[in-house]
């Protein structure tokens, strides 16, 4: 009885060890590539969010700025600053799951662009909100705008939740910006 239990246990352990070994190798092989892809997606989104930035090298990630705003605005994941403005990497929940956005705010305190890093919104509905033509409507918004869906932001039909998510992120990025830099200098 005892020996049988031991035998079963050992068999299961061997299977587990072999599996863990295989997974370890896969993880080691793919990790670098996954990190690269994530960085690339972020860099691409940042450059669309703040037109004028030509390469990711112009952006400086500042953890001090992040910790200054992060308590009050927990959706802010990263603050990338440059000579023409700041980019806020935001993470929120959309309709279909987590959604990461980059919001670029120029030195004048106005939104220069919003772009999507990753999302799981429904294709054909939520995805329309994230299309470039639609995101363009956030350009020029500042803290003096209400940024409320149904008031100064028109929701995309059938995608109110996604619209709300994006709008709130733009608003939060602006608020974080004004906390860091004041209302902006013209």
């Amino acid at each position, binding site marked *: 009885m005892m020996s*049988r239990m031991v035998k079963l246990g050992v*068999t299961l352990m061997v*299977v587990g060890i072999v599996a863990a070994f295989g997974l370890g190798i896969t993880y080691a092989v793919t990790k670098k590539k996954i990190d690269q*892809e994530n960085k690339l997606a972020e860099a691409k989104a940042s450059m669309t969010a703040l037109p004028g930035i030509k390469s990711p090298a112009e952006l400086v990630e500042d953890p001090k700025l992040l910790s200054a705003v992060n308590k009050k605005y927990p959706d802010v994941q990263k603050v990338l600053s440059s000579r023409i403005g700041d980019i806020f990497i935001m993470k929120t929940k959309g309709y*279909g799951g987590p959604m990461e956005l980059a919001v670029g705010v120029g030195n004048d305190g106005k939104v220069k662009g919003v772009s999507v890093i990753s999302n*799981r919104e429904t294709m054909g509905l939520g995805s329309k909100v994230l299309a470039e033509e639609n995101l363009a409507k956030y350009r020029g918004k500042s803290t003096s705008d209400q940024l409320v869906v149904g008031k100064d932001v028109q929701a995309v039909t059938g995608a109110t939740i996604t619209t709300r998510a994006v709008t709130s992120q733009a608003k939060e990025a602006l608020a974080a910006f004004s906390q860091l830099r004041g209302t902006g200098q013209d």
Partner: protein
Amino acid sequence: MAAETEELVLPEPKTGTSGWQEFSKGFIKQNPLMVLMVGLCSSLAISNRVENGIFMGLAATFVLVCSNVIIASIRKWTPDQIRIPIFIVVIASFVTIVDLSMKAYFPAAYDRLGVWIPLIVVNCIILARAEGFAYKNTVFRSFMDGLGMGAGYTMLLLIMGTIRELLGTGKIVIFDKTFISLGAFNPPAIFVLFPGAFITFACLMALLNRYKMGKAE
């Protein structure tokens, strides 16, 4: 000692069917979705787009084939009492391999399929084939079975994806290329949403049953 060896005696491998038959049964006769009705949950969720069907189908086929082959080849050393945990370890490992590789090499598709890739672990098709087929059959047969089941699954995802994407968005876009476009019309978005999945699946089921009834008469 005798009792222990007795437990390891396996059922006789099925004979009389060729490898080709094991493969082809997955398409219509034993299609995992339409006939066995397993693995429906993820299929209904992701079949709103042809491209999703391609990736999900390939991922599931890979896991099916690999786990079938491994389980068939270790079936003689697998004690009956702990076969299920062993199957699950094998399946989960392959799913994690797919998950990581897809994240690394097809990040856009991975983003869209989201949680459904890791959830292949609990996809009934795979455990059902491991327990119901691979555990009792030779490596070659299990390979063919996995390939056939995977192909049948993929085929159905593609059919559903085509119908739903075309009706729901008015065009079919695969790898950023538009293949078919219905031109200017306002597509009913319900087809890319969950109700559309049920409607499409029910219609396909009805068609298949009609075909079967016609054959029986």
